[in-house]
């Protein structure tokens, strides 16, 4: 989306020609790229890659530069010109000006000056008056001060001097008590906590060029070894799927992440040892070693190390013939979303609960099961969101007043081998089930193949679709496809997490039976499900905004102690499979794949 208020807009042909294609007269001339802005920098306090934000706090008090170290604050310099200017302008009292002058004199004479006490409003901690640490001064012993680690519980104090300053609210009064290094003189100043940015969001003129970057990591290759991926977020994974041995297809056991900075760079017929939480020595390159061998680190694309040039493969769908065929496929797509959501939920609830003591048999098992369940639930929710998106698109393409919500669960879902469809099968999260889920979400073959055809139809619309397509529908389908790719990769991860355990280790039962007719727990689940469908139908039918009440009600009914999720869990606790029975209602009659005769 173009910025609504461009700073510079090329108006005439000559101006446009300077920057762009002259035929594109009304294009917006962008300013500096967003990556050049301070807020886009990889800046943090540890000490930062492009800037070290701790340097901001060195100027928290007007006209002073400070050095916060642990629980001490040393005075580094006094801006005497600034003081003189402010005094002349009447912005600073003569008394304060003489305090500043005294501090400057101390520094000039080679005496250290420290802050012994700081009072002000410390953000969430509120107004405080804090004694800071002091070394032994003259006859007085060293003082620890009020700053404490850990900083927890009621009456907590900031853990260190920098954090204390960081917490100070901009524009509130701060009072500092200074003491010089022989303890012979104290002085006090009160001023507003300085602003770090000006009205335009640019760095305050108080900072000198280079000041924010004066304490950066160096040398970077050395730090590359020392700091983890939480730090080098964009270009340094701790772990990655290993480079494939020549001729080896991706798949187990090559999907398990290995240490990216491993010392042994040999590519063998078997993958390198999986990453563990064990100490990185001697598995990884040593600190100084990496200064010489960083070129051997592999590029990582899509989570996998590669050495050959990366060539992306674009999947291109084939447009449908006309509006009727497009709508039929959209209705089916909505049904597939509902069907797979139900399969994923059945799988999620088939996993042992976290409280199951048998999970403790293997130290990795509780985490792997918990992650698999969480991701299955996340993906199931994603499919429900897709159902909504598809309904919005169908509404947009339908004649006014003719829209019928697509809430018919698919009878069959796309499948590759054997293909092109398989019946919907609620079942436990067995290895076979996860394999099938991977096929469902696989790009170009599974449900994404269907969406790629839908997208192609919107992009290259047949005559009766042309006037109905909007960019919004195209973007909506694009986002469904993009999320499908995420689902695909997540299922690969789930496969990987569960692969080192046997099915019976993590499943409540390998083939749990459906609840028997009349099971009270299941009956309440099915009633809640029917209510969700009804609410969705009414909400979709009313359309955006008007239907919000029903859609919110459907969403709310999923959650809480009386929600669908809790009811499903109750069924699973009885070791039954969690399934959803389609109500006998023509609005929800299962839908077959378009153009396919179903026996």
């Amino acid at each position, binding site marked *: 989306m173009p910025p609504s208020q461009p700073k*510079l807009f090329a108006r*005439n042909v*000559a101006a446009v*020609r*300077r920057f762009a294609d002259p*035929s594109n007269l009304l294009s917006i001339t962008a300013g500096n790229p967003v990556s050049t802005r301070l807020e886009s920098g990889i800046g943090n306090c540890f000490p930062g890659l492009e800037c070290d934000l701790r340097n901001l706090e060195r100027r928290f008090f007007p006209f002073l530069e400070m050095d916060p170290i642990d629980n001490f604050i040393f005075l580094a310099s006094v801006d005497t010109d600034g003081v003189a200017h402010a005094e002349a302008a009447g912005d600073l009292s003569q008394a304060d000006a003489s305090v500043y002058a005294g501090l400057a004199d101390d520094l000039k004479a080679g005496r250290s000056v420290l802050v012994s006490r700081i009072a002000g409003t410390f953000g969430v901690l509120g107004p405080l008056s804090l004694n800071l640490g002091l070394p032994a001064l003259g006859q007085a012993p060293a003082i620890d001060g009020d700053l404490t680690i850990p900083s927890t519980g009621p009456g907590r104090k900031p853990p260190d001097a920098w954090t204390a300053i960081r917490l100070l609210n901009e524009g509130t009064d701060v009072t500092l008590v200074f003491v010089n290094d022989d303890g012979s003189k104290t002085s006090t100043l009160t001023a507003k906590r300085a602003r770090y940015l000006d009205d335009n969001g640019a760095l305050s003129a108080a900072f000198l060029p280079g000041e924010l970057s004066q304490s950066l990591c160096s040398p970077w290759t050395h730090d590359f070894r020392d700091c983890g991926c939480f730090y080098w977020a964009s270009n340094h994974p701790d772990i990655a799927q290993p480079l494939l041995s020549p001729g080896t297809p991706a798949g187990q056991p090559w999907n398990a992440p290995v240490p990216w900075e491993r010392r042994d760079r040999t590519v063998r017929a078997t993958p390198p040892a999986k990453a563990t939480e064990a100490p990185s020595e001697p598995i990884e390159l040593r600190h100084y070693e990496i200064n010489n061998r960083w070129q051997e680190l592999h590029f990582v694309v899509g989570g996998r190390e590669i050495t050959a040039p990366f060539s992306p493969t674009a999947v291109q769908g084939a447009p449908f013939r006309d509006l009727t065929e497009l709508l039929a496929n959209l209705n089916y797509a909505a049904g597939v979303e509902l069907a797979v959501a139900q399969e994923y939920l059945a799988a999620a609830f088939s996993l042992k609960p976290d409280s199951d003591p048998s999970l403790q048999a293997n130290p990795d098992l509780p985490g792997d099961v918990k992650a698999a369940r969480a991701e299955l639930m996340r993906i199931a929710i994603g499919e429900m969101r897709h159902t909504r998106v598809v309904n919005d698109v169908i509404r947009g393409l339908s004649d006014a007043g003719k829209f019928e919500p697509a809430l018919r669960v698919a009878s069959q879902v796309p499948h590759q081998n054997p293909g092109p469809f398989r019946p919907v099968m609620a079942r436990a999260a067995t290895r076979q089930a996860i394999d099938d889920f991977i096929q469902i979400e696989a790009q170009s073959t599974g449900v994404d193949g269907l969406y790629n055809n839908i997208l192609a139809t919107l992009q290259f619309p047949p005559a009766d679709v042309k006037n109905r397509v909007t960019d919004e529908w195209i973007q909506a389908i694009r986002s469904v496809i993009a999320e499908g790719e995420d689902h695909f990769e997540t299922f690969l991860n789930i496969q990987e997490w569960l692969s080192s355990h046997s099915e019976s280790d993590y499943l409540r039962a390998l083939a749990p039976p459906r609840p028997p007719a009349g099971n009270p727990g299941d009956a309440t689940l099915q009633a809640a499900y029917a209510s969700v469908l009804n609410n969705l139908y009414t909400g979709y039918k009313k359309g955006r905004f008007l239907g919000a009440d029903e859609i919110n009600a459907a969403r709310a009914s999923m959650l809480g102690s009386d929600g669908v999720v809790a009811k499903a869990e109750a069924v699973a606790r009885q070791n039954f499979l969690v399934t959803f029975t389609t109500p006998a209602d023509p609005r929800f009659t299962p839908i077959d794949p378009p153009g396919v005769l179903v026996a």
Partner: protein
Amino acid sequence: MLAVSVVPGSPQAPNYRRFRSGAGEHLLVVPHTRIFDLSHALAASLDVDVQAADRFAAALGETSELEADLAAVVTPAPQSLSLNVSSSCNLSCGYCYADRGAFGGAQAATMQTVVAEQAVERLLAVADPARPITIGFLGGEPLRNRDLVHAIVHFAGGRAQQQKLDVRFSITTNGTLIADSDIKLFRDHRFAVTISIDGDAVAHDAQRPLRNGSGSFARLAKRAAPLLADPGRAQVAARMTVRCDRFDLEPRLNAIWSLGFPEAGVAPLRVAADGSELRDDAWPIYRDALIAVASRELERAMRGLPIRLTNFAVALRQIHAGASSPYPCGAGGGYFSVAADGDWYACHRAIGDKRYRLGSSAALDESGRRSFLEARHVHAKADCRICWARYLCAGGCHQETGARSVASCNFIRDWLDFCLASYCELSSTRPDHFAHRLKPKA
């Protein structure tokens, strides 16, 4: 084109002109006439620090690969020629620069067809065949040598067909001698017909009398009417000369438009044989009158109607395209004017002036051309080289250099300020006004 030398610009030359319009805050980047809209914040910051603003504008004004270096002196192939075909006129306008075609005796004889043919042959031989070629007829009153005009049109038309050239014609006439055969000629060929008419009958007759002292308006109106009613392939426009004694532009232009002229341009006298040129105190009056008429045309354009004031229409078109040149006209570059004796001059107003004589149909004086162009490059003009309007005005007509004054230059700058703001407003409200004028570069 061959770059032969460079006239460096002044380091003191401003790189920008800040202006605002009803559409907001703007920046004219002087080199290459680039116009940018500014956010209010950026405009305010540029106004505070003029040196920073100038550096900013210099960066925006860097010459791109598609543009010519503004400091270069180039001698392009001659592309248009005017033939001074008549040394006499049936009118006796007091302000005439040409002494009714006699140029103070420098052009006593009437041009012979063979002279004109030689000139045309030469032009067709040296012009860039991929671009349009224009042959113009001037005088005196060119239609007093009607046979030559017709002969040359047919001669050049035939050559154009043979050589697959795009040859067009132009004529500047007082309109009183237009015959039916002339109208047919204009209609059948791509003629730009400029008729000199100074307003309604009263103004016109006062300024443009026949030799016997009586008015010429009625005759002009009668002769021009059939052409205006059906111009065929011709483009007909009026040219109105403004003397120092009357600035009632609007009623005079209305009178011209009411005759059916789709466009009329105005030209104030800077140098006049009878002393009727505008003096310093007249320029603000003229400016106000011109801007008043143009404002009315701008309102029309905002409603989707065409602009009928040629000066304004051309200015907007050129600002849109970013017209930017170190020369005010093509004199000695792409344009030459041929005297009755066959000599080639840089300009039709300088017939007989040795300083402007740059060769003949036999050969062009290339080194003379170069020195002529070097001396007249806007960077070589002490007062012009540090003016923000230098690539839009370029110092004005070479013949009128001596008449340049602060007041007359202020008129140019004020007029350009008005046109710049008008351009921004019109292109904001009606971008379609300019859409069809965007033609791909050859």
